[in-house]
């Protein structure tokens, strides 16, 4: 079939099953947008390209399908650099299409020219600069294959304008269906070696203080059911990292919750005292390990990851298993058969003791005091459907959301774990809602983050993607303020957002949202109920919260996890 490169791109996207594209038109991508008019997919017009990138990411995380973002060259391409880096660090399957100046002008500093493949080389799994429109079907097919196979990640396709523009003879092409991918340098290994499984089993069976260290890879592999089966079969407690919240229900008796810098005492100390860590799709991030040379000093390590470069990158495992988490866990369970494992009773009692002495807790607000952010999250959790999708920004509110939201379903927690991208929540929530329109989607945001990407609420209003935003307004860049208080003698530098502008109610209303301000603790539940009842427009609920609240527990940067700081009111008690 004869067509131009722009038509071929849309046909190729449809061929890959793409239902929705988040994007923004411009000069070099104009010819492709002409074909968007005739395509059988939905295009969501964002208000800033960064928003399109995070929407694609939120969509991918919630649905498990690759997200697609399409923008023009130059400033648009550089505007998606942050979401690409974000998706790369959090292993989110994404395909980005960027326009490029005509091939003959590349290298001449042409209008809106950037070296997009050069800029994104280190933050994509792979990228392409296409010179021949006949290559488009196969390149798109490869891009989706690479983005979704092995360790997922973003792939970028840069399309020079001359090969997509019907008015340019360079764009003429003959459509040929893509052939199966043949990439000699990309053949992910999915199944574990039987000898490695046997070695892992030996450690699993004899450990008396084991902990499963479940990371985001569990969710990427859609292996939540397998994780639960392994934990139950081996009676092994599980910590779920920031990227793995929801991988095991928080209500499950074996779930210890989140470890790491703001993890709870039991999750952190369980890893410190474990004799075996079973790392499943986790990567020993510095925010989890604290000071590495004192992390889990007595633990042997079984490390399962689909990316062999993670095995031994930070901590040398005793048993390294390269493979897909879902399949590796299944083979572990298979090989385990009816075999007995060591008694974990004493270990479990020790952990329960810690849980009793050091629960996640905060001091309730004094009468007449401002709202406690933790209380707001608890009420939001209790007042919303159990399978609500929660997207958070980055900072204190992110940690409180992760700590106090009880996740009972996988794939319902979206956040920027690796890159720590402020402003992630609103666009990510929009992407998730676009992909899962029947689910309630809450963005839990801070006032700093909100001011970075709130313009996407216009997108939500206009495109009828009715997300809800819980804006925890503490009038500070709270996490930075907390560090300045704890580590810089409380010398507060450039963290005050008290304004008095913006007026978040007027701002939200101007963007087409219903806006509710809550200052009185007695109004919290009503406001949440009202917000949850609105489904025809986005809603912003501004909770005016206690400015000086800190996130606890905390492992100070560079310190050992054993130096975990519990909240002041728990510090007087004797450690177990």
């Amino acid at each position, binding site marked *: 079939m004869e067509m131009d490169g722009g038509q071929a791109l849309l046909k190729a996207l449809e061929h890959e099953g793409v239902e929705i594209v988040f994007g923004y038109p411009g000069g070099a991508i104009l010819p492709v947008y002409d074909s968007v008019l005739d395509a059988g997919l939905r295009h969501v017009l964002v208000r800033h390209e960064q928003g399109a990138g995070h929407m694609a990411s939120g969509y991918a995380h919630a649905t498990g399908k690759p997200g697609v973002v399409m923008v023009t060259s130059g400033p648009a391409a550089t505007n998606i650099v942050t979401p690409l880096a974000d998706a790369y660090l959090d292993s989110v399957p994404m395909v980005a299409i960027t326009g490029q100046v005509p091939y003959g002008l590349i290298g001449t500093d042409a209008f809106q020219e950037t070296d997009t*493949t*050069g800029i994104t*080389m*280190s933050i994509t*799994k*792979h990228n392409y*600069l296409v010179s021949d429109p006949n290559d488009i079907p196969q390149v798109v097919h490869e891009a989706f294959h*690479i983005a979704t196979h092995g360790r997922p990640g973003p792939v970028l396709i840069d399309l020079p304008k001359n090969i997509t523009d019907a008015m340019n003879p360079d764009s003429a092409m003959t459509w040929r269906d893509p052939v199966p991918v043949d*990439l*000699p*340098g*990309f053949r992910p290994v999915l199944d574990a070696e039987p000898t490695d499984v046997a070695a892992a089993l030996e450690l699993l069976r004899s450990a008396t203080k084991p902990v499963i260290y479940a990371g985001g890879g569990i969710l990427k592999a859609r292996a939540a059911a397998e994780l639960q089966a392994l934990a139950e079969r081996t009676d092994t407690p599980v910590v779920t990292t920031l990227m793995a919240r929801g991988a095991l229900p928080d209500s499950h008796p074996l779930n210890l919750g989140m470890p790491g810098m703001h993890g709870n005492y039991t999750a952190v100390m369980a890893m410190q005292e474990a004799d075996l860590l079973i790392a499943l799709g986790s990567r020993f991030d510095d925010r989890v390990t604290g000071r590495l040379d004192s992390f889990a000093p007595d633990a042997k390590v079984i490390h399962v990851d689909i*990316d*062999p*470069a993670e*095995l*031994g*990158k930070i901590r040398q495992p005793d048993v390294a298993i390269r493979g897909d988490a879902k399949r590796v866990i299944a083979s572990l369970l298979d090989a385990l058969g009816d075999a007995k494992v060591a008694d974990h009773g004493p270990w479990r009692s020790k952990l329960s003791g810690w849980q009793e002495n050091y629960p996640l807790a905060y001091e309730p607000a004094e009468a007449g005091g401002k709202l406690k952010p933790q209380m707001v999250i608890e009420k939001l959790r209790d007042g919303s459907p159990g399978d609500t999708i929660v997207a958070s920004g980055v900072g204190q509110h992110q940690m409180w959301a992760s700590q106090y939201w009880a996740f009972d379903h996988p794939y319902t927690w979206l956040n920027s774990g690796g890159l720590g991208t402020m402003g992630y929540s609103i666009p990510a929530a929009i992407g998730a809602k676009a992909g899962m329109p029947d689910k309630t989607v809450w963005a839990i945001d801070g006032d700093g983050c909100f001011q970075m990407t709130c313009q996407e609420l216009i997108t939500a209003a206009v495109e009828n993607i009715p997300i809800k935003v819980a804006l925890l307004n503490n009038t500070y860049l709270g996490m930075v303020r907390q560090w300045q208080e704890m580590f810089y003698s409380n010398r507060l530098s450039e963290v005050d957002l008290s304004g008095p502008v913006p007026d978040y109610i007027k701002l939200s209303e101007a963007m087409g949202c219903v806006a509710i301000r809550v200052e009185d603790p007695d109004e919290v539940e009503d406001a949440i109920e009202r917000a949850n009842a609105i489904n025809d427009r986005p809603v912003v609920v501004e909770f005016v919260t206690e400015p000086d609240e800190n996130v606890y527990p905390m492992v100070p940067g560079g310190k050992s996890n054993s130096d975990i700081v519990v909240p002041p009111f728990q510090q007087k008690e004797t450690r177990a």
Partner: protein
Amino acid sequence: MRPVLAKETHTLAVLVENKAGVLARVAGLFARRGFNIESLAVAPTDERFSRITIVVDAESASLDQVKKQLDKLINVVDIRDLPPESSALREMVLVRLSLSDDALVDDVLQLVSGFSGAVLRVRGTDMILSLSSRPEELDSFLDKLQPYGIVELQRTGAIAIPGIE
């Protein structure tokens, strides 16, 4: 003259697809992961593939991580590490000398012949020499030439293939 192989190194043979930008991907990976390249030589082996020999400073990185990170690049097809003692390894150098006295020409010719090098050009007291050998031989060749007045030199970096068992 800095002895190239005095420090601990790993020699890697990397087979890559002949795609635009593949060298930038490999070089960029080394830069961003903090692996120091001692030398790098690359050329096509056929229409589809090129072969790169990379010598890496072993102190800057674990061999395991270098190989695994390289393997993540989609265009990298195969990586082998080639222990110097069991591999065929060669490097070439071109040297230009400007002698202070034409009586020295004979000394240099003798030296070159001792190393089985070649004299490519002689004009008066200016000479261009070449030597293809193991890198440590090149080091010692250049050491001996140093007093005669090296004006310019270019080494290729090592290339290597596995030895015959």
